[in-house]
């Protein structure tokens, strides 16, 4: 009989980073395929370019900096895929490539690589590109005809077809148009327990409540459904806000985090210049995550009342 002596943890889960990332890629497939089917060849090229350049950026940076190669864990693939899905279909290919390099090198690697970035790399890259190349990033076309996104149509008081928006027969970025495909992917992630409903649900509900109070549309159900299914809210709520690295780990914290994103999205959509506000709402809330975690730290049983302070209590706070 042999005795093994080792320090904890003694029981390990089967989830590894690469398995989780693989699950996310599978969950993103429906919306990716719909985007390629609906927008055509250039959408496919954009996605290939962004994924390939994200992986290349990670490889080159880690090689040049003589760091451990983390290309195999698949996180760069997910980042690249999300960047591709956030691009308008007719964007020139160098834009997603620039975005991938920015996401991987500036947002992720400069802060220490996987697990260390304080902001969702894909969304930070999207915001970087939207600010820098507004002309390309807001040019939405369907079948080579420039179209307005449903959200823009709603904002300017036009007519919209709710069923088309739900299925994805409308203008927008490659991955955000089909709420149906995103929900299929989200269901897969929920079944696989990769994500929980806390963040997406609190996000969507708080957004809905905010819209109910401040949009001034009364009880126009069609308008609210269009706000939820239109634009980046669905892909943002299920795939971007739930990023492990940039969302809180405490259960209460996740709900608080979802609510803050919901309120910010509402503010940006109702009062902002642009019809969209999901990406900025999420990356701003990403910055608040350390504080949310600090405020919602659970108290171990029997340790008495929670005492909050910003002071470091010995060691690493």
């Amino acid at each position: 009989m042999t005795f093994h002596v080792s320090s904890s943890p003694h029981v390990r889960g089967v989830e590894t980073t690469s398995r989780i990332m693989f699950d996310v890629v599978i969950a993103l497939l429906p919306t990716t395929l719909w985007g390629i089917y609906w927008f055509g060849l250039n959408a496919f090229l954009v996605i290939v370019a962004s994924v390939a350049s994200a992986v290349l950026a990670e490889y080159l940076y880690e090689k040049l900096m003589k760091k451990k190669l983390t290309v195999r864990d698949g996180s760069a693939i997910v980042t690249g895929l999300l960047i591709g899905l956030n691009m308008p279909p007719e964007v020139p290919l160098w834009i997603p490539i620039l975005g991938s390099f920015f996401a991987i090198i500036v947002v992720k690697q400069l802060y220490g690589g996987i697990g260390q970035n304080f902001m969702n790399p894909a969304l930070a890259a999207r915001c970087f590109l939207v600010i820098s190349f507004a002309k390309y990033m807001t040019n939405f076309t369907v079948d080579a005809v420039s179209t307005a996104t449903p959200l823009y149509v709603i904002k300017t008081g036009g007519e919209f077809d709710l069923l088309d928006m739900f299925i994805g027969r409308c203008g927008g970025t490659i991955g955000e148009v089909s709420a149906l495909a995103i929900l299929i992917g989200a269901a897969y992630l929920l079944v696989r327990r990769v994500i929980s409903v806390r963040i997406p649900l609190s996000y969507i509900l708080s957004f809905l409540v905010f819209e109910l109070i401040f949009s001034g549309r009364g009880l126009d159900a069609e308008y609210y459904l269009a706000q939820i299914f239109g634009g980046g809210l669905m892909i943002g709520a299920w795939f971007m806000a739930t990023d492990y690295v940039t969302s809180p780990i405490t259960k209460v914290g996740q709900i608080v985090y979802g609510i803050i994103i919901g309120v910010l999205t509402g503010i940006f959509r109702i009062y902002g210049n642009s019809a969209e506000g999901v990406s900025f709402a999420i990356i701003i809330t990403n910055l608040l995550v350390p504080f949310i975690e600090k405020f919602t730290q659970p108290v171990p049983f029997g340790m008495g009342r929670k005492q909050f302070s910003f002071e470091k209590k010995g060691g690493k706070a």
Partner: protein
Amino acid sequence: MNKYTERIYNGVVKENPTFVMMLGMCPTLAVTSSAFNGFGMGMTTMVVLVMSNLVISLLRNVIPDRVRIPAYIVVVATLVTIVQLLLQAYIPVLNELLGIYIPLIVVNCIILGRAEAYAGKHSPVLSVMDGIGMGLGFTIGLTAIGVFREILGSGSVLGYQIIPEDYHISIFVMAPGAFFVLAMLTALQNKLKAPSATNTEEKKDCADCSACALSGNCTRMNSGKGGDE
């Protein structure tokens, strides 16, 4: 290097206000959207800095210690007003480009910092040299940031367009771009191990020279004792 040129070396390299001391961040981030703006701001600050160092150094035995900060501010504010009026009269273009940031030189921490740390304790000539060094360092820092932001953000070098409009990364002429460029240049300065006040060489106990990153360049290698100081 005598003590006068040492002040200049100190201001430009060793204690560069922008990349080493991280002083005067407000103008550094706000007005460096082009190389000319950065240069103009740097030179304006340098003029004020040299004069304020001179005046404060001359007055250092007159100003009572307890009210020195208000006294310094009065001196600096007077000088800034003079410089602004001069700019309005002779270089109105620069005056319009820098706008509110000229009056804000009054509260620039480089100027108060040098008054407090140097000019208030040293002779007028040395203080003037210190002002020139710090001012040059600040000008170089701002111009360098401005050059990169101008190339990336508006695709031009000193106003001459070299990159077509479509490829301008316009975030670089906005506030975030200033942070990116400042951080990158500071990182580069650290990476190249430029001699600076914050970049002092670490003293390690190196038993084995072959495993050391410095191998070949280490000053202690030839002593044969492997760093037993």
